[in-house]
């Protein structure tokens, strides 16, 4: 296993890394968001890194392409997304972060999928990677100097200090 970032005691922090893009999202947004390439079930797409959101918020068009089973979902839940109340269902999704260096990561995450009638209002927004049920499940770090997203499994390490080896 290649380790890309280390704790001070040489324990592994990040075992994979991938490049990301920066882009303002939506008509009114001026600040850039981090867009990370991720695989949701069998679909490789981009998703916004958003620690202020719970769960993965799966864009309706991506959910349609995946072909999720409604019977296995927790239906009829409502979530506030970007100030709008959206009805949908919660699913368990298989997500993969494909490393361009080091090891790729496969995860099971909680994902909110808006009901189909919200597809038009959703427009061209991408999916979101939220904290609870997704980002909380692995270690990650962002290097804005090189647009690199580092990631690795949580493991047992308790040291709070990390550093990058040359």
């Amino acid at each position, binding site marked *: 296993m290649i380790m890309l970032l280390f704790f001070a005691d040489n324990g592994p922090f990040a075992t994979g890394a991938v*490049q990301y893009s920066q882009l303002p999202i939506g008509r009114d947004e001026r600040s850039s968001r981090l867009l990370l390439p991720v695989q949701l079930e*069998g679909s490789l797409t981009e998703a916004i890194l958003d620690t202020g959101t719970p769960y993965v918020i799966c864009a309706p068009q991506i959910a349609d392409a995946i072909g999720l089973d409604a019977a296995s979902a927790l239906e009829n839940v409502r979530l506030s997304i970007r100030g709008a109340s959206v009805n949908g269902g*919660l699913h368990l999704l298989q997500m993969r972060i*494909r490393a361009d260096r080091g090891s790729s990561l496969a995860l099971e995450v*909680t994902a909110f999928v808006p009901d189909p009638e919200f597809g038009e209002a959703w427009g061209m927004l991408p999916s979101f990677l939220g904290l609870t049920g*997704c980002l909380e499940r692995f270690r990650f770090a962002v290097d804005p100097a090189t647009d690199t997203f580092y990631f690795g499994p949580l493991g047992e390490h308790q040291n709070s200090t990390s550093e990058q080896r040359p």
Partner: protein
Amino acid sequence: MTTALQASHRNVPDGFIASLALERYSLPIYANQTNTGWTSSPFHDVTLADYELHWSPLQVPFRTEMAQTGVDAPTLAEYDVDALEVTSTGTTMNGSHNLAGVWEHLRIAAEAADERRFIAAYASVDWTEQPPGAIMRAVRLAISADAPLAARKLATEGAQRHPEHAELQKAARILTPAGVVRSDLPPDPNMAKNVQWLKDHRDQYRNQWVAVQAGRLLGVAATLTALIERVGKREDILYTVA
């Protein structure tokens, strides 16, 4: 003034728990069957003359609970509604222990996506005393209130206490994902090429779906469905909005 509701009944199976509501104000009352009738949780500062009382036996929680007893879902006529009695105990209670008031706070917090308000109300309830239908309702409200950790705690603890409740089991499973299942998978060097293509060319295709494979553009379309029809669906193709 604190008031309790009581209703006599007939043909109700043992152990039955129902969800009832004062519909005018949407104040839910979770009633437990006892040997002497249904006894609701008390609620606070309510003048009953202001309400039109309706038993609401066809609400989803009601059906769910009935289904678990193995009894067909009831109709209103099956219950002795005429014998519904409303009595006041005349006892003053602390508002924080007022269950109907708490449900109202939870509902308002959910509508406002107000996690702090939800947590304050949620913390005042002993959820071990609540029936599974009520816990499930609280899970949904917690999700709406942007209180995902409370939703997870309610679902997992409720599922442990009520292994027979299928929806709580499902909620606990979905809200507690496994997280990392493999961390030793090989890298995909094409990812960096795809991201580099997007950085270099995204502006040319703004607000259109693009398909990129190994740093090459495969196709462009207005919708993802049209794009997949054009280029096919493969796991090594990146589909995104430029």
